[in-house]
């Protein structure tokens, strides 16, 4: 399988703190990979490195073979990396539909002058964007609330809307940052289905940061484990569950009498 995203010895330092240290990691086309680790292990930092929020101190991040470590967030999104946020970041004053429409900006042909002139090309593009946005919302069962303010959605629906918004940028790799946070068990089961469905329907690679072991073990094909900014294990869910270092990282080490 060809590698979509490739990290090579990626390190980032914040002053004296090494948040991510020499991480090698990759995501292949169409793969569903999990990224787990205890609190403060550097999972979200790694996300922010991949999406250009932070610049790596050293090492290289390649997407589709191109170095993206020093590119801006918006340019990286333009290449096909979309993300959701750990604490929901919707455009709070916009309607559900407009949240999705805003994300179509990336592939917009008519820009500033088009919006001013409002010619035929502009109008047909606006029309098709709206239709596509509604179609996306329909797939995720949000079409009925399309004109509601996004703040009025339930927590679970807001998470779903974040996924829809990310999909509107037409990504090849979708990064989900703790999508199950704050959900009840029923919602989590539904979320797992939703993630798998999204991946298959849109032919995406998905990188999932998650605390909830049930979610991660249930859907990921491969899992990488971070601890103190280092990758300590990588493998299939079954391998990870047996890995001594992973167990130690989560549960503490067994004290053996000498």
């Amino acid at each position, binding site marked *: 399988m060809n590698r979509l995203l490739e990290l090579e010895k990626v390190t980032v330092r914040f002053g004296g703190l090494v948040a991510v240290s020499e991480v090698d990691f990759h995501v292949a086309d169409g793969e569903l990979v999990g990224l787990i680790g205890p609190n403060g292990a550097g999972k979200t930092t790694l996300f922010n490195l991949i999406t250009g929020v932070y610049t790596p101190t050293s090492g290289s991040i390649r997407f589709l073979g191109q170095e993206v470590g020093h590119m801006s967030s918006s340019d990286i999104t333009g290449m096909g990396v979309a993300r959701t946020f750990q604490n929901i970041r919707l*455009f709070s004053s916009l309607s559900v539909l*407009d949240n999705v429409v805003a994300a179509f900006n990336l592939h917009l042909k008519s820009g500033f002058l088009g919006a001013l002139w409002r010619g035929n090309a502009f109008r047909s593009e606006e029309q098709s964007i709206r239709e596509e946005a509604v179609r996306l919302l329909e797939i995720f069962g949000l079409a009925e609330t399309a004109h509601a303010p996004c703040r009025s959605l339930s927590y679970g629906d807001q998470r779903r809307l974040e996924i829809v918004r990310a999909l509107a940028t037409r990504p090849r790799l979708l990064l989900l940052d703790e999508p199950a946070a704050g959900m009840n068990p029923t919602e989590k089961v539904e979320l797992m289905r939703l993630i798998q469905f999204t991946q298959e329907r849109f032919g995406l690679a998905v990188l999932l940061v998650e605390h909830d072991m049930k979610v991660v073990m249930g859907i990921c094909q491969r899992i990488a484990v971070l601890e103190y900014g280092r990758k300590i294990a990588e493998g299939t869910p079954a391998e990870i569950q047996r890995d001594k270092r992973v167990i130690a990282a989560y549960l503490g080490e067994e004290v053996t009498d000498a």
Partner: protein
Amino acid sequence: MGARSGFLAAVLAAFVISGLFTGHPEAAWPLAQLDDYLLNILILAGINVVLATSLNIVNGHTGQFSLGHAGFMAVGAYGSAALTQINGKACLAALSFLGPCAQGGLFVCALLFGAALAALAGLAVGLPSLRLRGDYLAIVTLGFGEIIRVVFQNTEAVGGARGLTGIPPQTTLGWTWAVAALCIYCVSALVNSTYGRGFLAVRDDEIAAEAMGINPTRYKVTAFVVGAFFAGLAGALYAHLIGYISPEGFTFLKSVDVVVMVILGGMGSTVGVAFAAVGLTVLNELLRQAEQYRMVAFSLLLIVLMITRPQGLLGGMGRFFSRKGGNP
């Protein structure tokens, strides 16, 4: 149908009205008997509409707090006067091929020249300063506004602190409201498009906007340049209304006046801001009776309004041509 024809209708209406209100007593139409004082107020209201709706795209729609609008207004005023007053004779001669329209042609050129200069100034100020946010941006724009004013104050070629007199008074009600219609149209058209959703996205959450492939800096600078362009137009209209400009007319307080209109009308609501601009201009004149208590009454009104309606008069509703089920 839609926005463009609406805009054309508005411009046409502005010109028709300007035909009616020429201000010349000999005109047959009774409305033309409008006295100069009232006419001036109506023109000033139009200029304030341009100022407020153009600042609204920066402060309201894009969520950047700019306090330097008077500076761009000054650039437009001085820039336009440079063509009509300082180099007036030479410019008129150059446009003599237009025959009887030379005077009007020069006026249009001066308006556009002033606006273009202001837009350039907006670009120059925006590029470095829009990396800052919130209070920091406010302070930097305030500083730039003052710098622009002080530069004019110390440039003898434009009259220095004495100001510039003898600017031909060519601004009519029609011109002013045509520009106001143009400004309202441009801001509304920009915001009500997929492209324009980028401004609102940047305002609501810059980090999320960036993650959706929207370049916040480009949007902020665009908003700033558009805002400065129309502020420049307003300045040019103002210069050719009063016939006299001096640096004193473009102080920080003028910027605050415009900010007040935007906040009062409701940040991000084009209609609300336009109404607030007209309302405050009229109120300012009505309170003239109260003399030294004018500013007290003015401030009290603002305080009461901010307590009872912090989102502004029309904040959160009424975009100019929002569709059914547009933004809440």
